[in-house]
């Protein structure tokens, strides 16, 4: 189960994580809905595009030390782009999401994966994530509540193009 667009839904995407012995160019990408690492997308692009032409949906995920710009011009090819949070305190994923939404104009599903906890989800939602795969062992129904922690915000971000001072009469 994941949270997507503020609902809890079942999910059949598989996140492909490379084992130490796997090489991006040779790792087997299983059939079905797979979110592949950026390195696999870059190394196996032709084969993955062929799959897409046959009707398969593509997903890709970025590590926190990779940059959104690596997908420049390609974002519309993906049904899902995921950003991995190796530790919940690693905040680079917030800027990656901001870039995907605001600079690369990605409009599809943007999913937070990895060390995803409810208390970070409100900010994640604001920078552009609309899907969350909370860390295993956490109550997903409880997590959903956090998306409504605040009903008003000061700054612009991916969710609000206008800062508060331009949106309301203060």
């Amino acid at each position: 189960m994941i949270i997507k667009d503020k609902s809890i839904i079942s999910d059949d995407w598989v996140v492909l994580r490379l084992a130490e012995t796997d090489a991006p160019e040779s790792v087997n990408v299983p059939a079905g809905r797979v979110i592949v690492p950026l390195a696999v997308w870059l190394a196996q692009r032709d084969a993955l595009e062929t799959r897409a032409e046959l009707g398969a949906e593509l997903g890709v995920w970025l590590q926190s030390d990779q940059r959104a710009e690596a997908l420049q011009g390609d974002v519309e090819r993906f049904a899902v782009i995921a950003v991995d949070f190796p530790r919940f305190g690693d905040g680079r994923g917030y800027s990656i999401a901001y870039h995907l939404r605001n600079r690369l104009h990605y409009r599809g599903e943007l999913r937070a994966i990895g060390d995803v906890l409810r208390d970070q989800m409100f900010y994640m939602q604001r920078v552009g994530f609309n899907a969350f795969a909370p860390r295993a062992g956490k109550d997903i129904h409880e997590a959903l509540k956090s998306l409504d922690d605040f009903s008003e915000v000061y700054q612009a971000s991916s969710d609000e193009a206008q800062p508060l001072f331009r949106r309301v009469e203060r």
Partner: protein
Amino acid sequence: MMYRYDQFDHQITAQRVAQFRDQVRRRLSGELTEDEFRILRLQNGLYMQIHAYMMRVAVPYGLLSAPQVRMLAHISRKYDRDYGHFTTRQNIQFNWLKLEDAPDVLADLASVEMHANQTSGNCIRNITCDEFAGVARDEIVDPRPYAELLRQWSTFHPEFGYLPRKFKFAMTGATHDRAAIAVNDIGLQAVRNEQGEVGFRVLVGGGLGRTPVIGTEIAAFVPWQHIITYAESIVRVYNEHGRRDNMYKSRIKILVNAIGIAEFRRQVEEDWKFTKDGPCTVTRAELDRIAACFTSPAYESLADLDVAASQPGNQAFANWLHRNVKPHKVAGYAAVVLSLKKTGMAPGDATARQMDAAAELADRYSFGELRVTHMQNLVLADVKQSELFALWQQASELDMATPNIGLLTDIICCPGGDFCTLANARSIPLAKAIAKCFDDIDFLHDIGDLDLNISGCVNACAHHHVGHIGILGVEKSGEEWYQVTIGGDQGNHSAIGKVIGRSFSFGQVPEVLARLLQVYVRERFDDERFIDTLRRIGADPFKEYVYATPIEDCKGLAGPEYDLLKQGTPYDMPYYSPRF
């Protein structure tokens, strides 16, 4: 006057309290682990110290109203031990809180338009400001409306809650920098260009701690409309590229030094292209709305007075006028510094009684407002010169009129080993010992301007690197020792002090200071300040004299009087603390 919350500020603050109340509930029930909870509590100002939880309450740009100060006194009585500690970031800390009370403290603060948002954690911290903003004679631009703009922008900024490390802004609008802008991650100096338009000179990458660095200019003039987008680009580049592998190398200063200011500037400007002139550009209407809160109070039309002449022969009052009373832009008024540095008190501490009384003084003499200084004192910014004598008499009774502002005993001091889990050594007892050794007002006035800063560890909360004399607590084989630096300075001539040599025991430090001062007195010209003599003759004569003969360890200073832990305060275990 000061910024007042509108319905949106109230709503956001109330929802923050509710959010944290739920997080505390989940921590107490075990649903959240301490590791998961730590970041959440820090972003609400809550630390776990040696004895209990400590809350650092934000005092945005150092400005407080009398009702807010009364609430701080109330909080200290209800939840703490009848006192608070004002900090070098113009905040106030309560040292003895229980975790389960923290949400109620936040709710009490919210009732007077205060909070503890982002006073810790790897996020944008409380923005500090010139304590004489709006009243200083050398002010070019009142920085407070811009500081409030940035406060709102940085509050719960969704992209910058989990930066590589903490991030500090400081701002001044005067020609003389009283906000230490050169030693903050971003330093902003409000200026006017040739057309008279307001903008900011922007410094980046300053900071103290393990690697002290003076900030570098990244932009000579950013027009005020663009200050949010420009700051956002700096923080974004830092968030993306700042180091996260080593917490000692994760501040923005390390990134700026690693890639160079030219490359850093290029990256910032590259990012800024996307947002400059976009929706986050500040509107005139928003600036005017905020600036309208900071209008001058209803000053009377008065003439400047010769206040000292009105009390002939009163040397104590004259001393106070000389050190604690500062010039004001309006004739007939003065700004008054209430000293929290009386000998025997922990520097920066104020009791509940003092806080209530300070609020009373503010109501009576200064339009109901106070400021907190980064030197850990309080300011009444708008006092009629004709009322200075009455104010002095009342402040004296409250132990807040020690005439030592800017003098040796106006010590900047961190909580140190008595409270802080990071400290290597005690700093408050050392500050008390030094104050006692040099407790002679004529001697202090003769020595004149001298910044003495004492940090209990290398994190440098007391800014020891920029003290004219800096003292740093270090640990050697389980014992506390103190390293002495000289030649540091804050303000327009910011400099990092240099270590004079091997470190000293607690009991040796006062004698070390005495020797440094003896060299100064021997070498100075007329009214030359300590720091100026040092700059002129260099550090060598000071070093040679300090180490020339053995320094006796003054055992008398190590007694129970200087040991907080033995003063009979009931330092019991906190009600709930996973440390124990």
